[in-house]
């Protein structure tokens, strides 16, 4: 085999190696598509989990509802800073100004919730 032939053979081998390496390497788009499929699956699982928990928590919710009925409760215990925040549905238009007329709201949770639209209606 001449030197020129040997060089041609080597270059053919190199090309084959490069082609093989390219074929063996995982394409970036494949990685992305698999990730997208996994994400879709996780999204589906999220909805499934929510539906399962809704069914599983029915008894728990019913017991809370029974407690509300038995104790004649009117509100959720979310904020305990001020009385008009603790019992949001029982609050009246004057309680935020209980310190002095024109007193500004100074409890952080008071600014988190918006004014219930039903509040003014009971004064009309």
């Amino acid at each position, binding site marked *: 085999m001449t030197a020129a032939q040997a060089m041609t053979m080597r270059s053919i081998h190199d090309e084959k190696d490069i082609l093989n390496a390219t074929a063996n390497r995982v*394409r*970036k*788009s494949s*990685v*992305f598509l698999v990730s997208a499929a996994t*994400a879709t699956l*996780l*999204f589906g699982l*999220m*909805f499934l*989990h*929510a539906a399962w*928990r*809704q069914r599983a*928590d029915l008894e*728990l*919710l019913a*017991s*809370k*509802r029974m*407690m*509300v*009925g*038995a*104790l*004649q*409760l*009117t*509100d*959720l*215990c*979310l*904020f*305990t*800073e*001020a*009385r008009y925040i*603790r*019992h*949001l*549905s*029982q609050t*009246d238009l*004057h*309680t935020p100004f*209980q310190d002095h007329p024109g007193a500004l709201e100074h*409890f*952080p*949770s008071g*600014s*988190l*919730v*918006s004014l*219930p*639209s*039903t*509040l003014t*209606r*009971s*004064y009309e």
Partner: protein
Amino acid sequence: MNSWIEKQRNILDFTLSCLWRRKGKNLTFVIVYTFIVFLLASVMFLTDALKHEAAFVLKDAPELVVQRTLAGRHELIPAAYIRSLSAIRGVAAVKPRLWGYYFYSSLKANYTVMVPDGFGHKEGNILIGRGIARTHDIHKGDSMWFARSDGSAANFTIAGLLPTESELISSDLILMGESDFRRLFGMPEGYATDLTLTVRNPKELTTIATKIVEILPDTRPIIRDEILRTYEAIFNWRQGIMVAILFGALLAFAILAWEKASGLSADEKKEIGILKAIGWETSDVILVRFWEGVVLSLTAFVAGVLLAYLHVFFSSAVLFEPILKGWSVLYPKFRLTPFVSIYQVTTLFFLTVIPYTVATIVPSWKAAIIDPDSQMR
């Protein structure tokens, strides 16, 4: 069809390589993007779950509560009002409710003290919510001291704790007998905090409420439907200060996205010029930018929504606790039932993914139609 798919995959390969080349910049962008989606989704999930929970649980709240007001303040209601209210046609029963607030000065915590119907424990015994037990580190059988309205001390024995699962409604509750309650607050006999009414026909509630105001003008009736609507309205994520905060965050993100999407760097413009020079068509260049937008925004969207779900329903929205807690000492430990709807996820998708993807296409189209020679210079 196959050749079309192969073309899209090749373009996607190229896009991902481009993104990987500028990984530092793109990764920072995805983190910020994910955080915005996470914040929006967390607020949405939390408010919706609370709304659903309130709507279900408060369905058994009193049909009608009657408060008395005096000089614009909630005042004790005389038991004599019961007779006037019972005489209204359609009213089945009127019951007095005894409840109030107790400020525990040593812990600076506010508690709700109530007298339940048929409290089956001896005088001097109380039932307490889990939040109080946690704050005081007390258990069944322990004692709890209170200061009466006349300054004397009252010692109560804890006869039991209210169930853990009910913390969202009972965390700060103290239940006691009527005589203990009246002695603690110095509330005179013949008075109650407010009255609850049961009606024969729920359709007549509004008519009865109007009649109550006519007969007793110093009273304020609150219908159960109003209680339910209160929770419907206050947890609307499109209202309140929450939306102001979110609007600020969204605006900051919009500026960032616009800057990233519209302000093509010199390198990116050169890249487009080279692609055009080697034979890429304008539509292919736009396709690259489209895929770039899809990859970045979808990654951030999926990560943000899933993290928000874990945050709200597995960690009880631990990051929002300092905001919700405010200055209060006591904070309920609650586990919310997840209510996730397609509507929520679609709204989030249209708020976050679509604007960014669209914003990436316009500038690249503008760059792609300029002469490649001038872009490469």
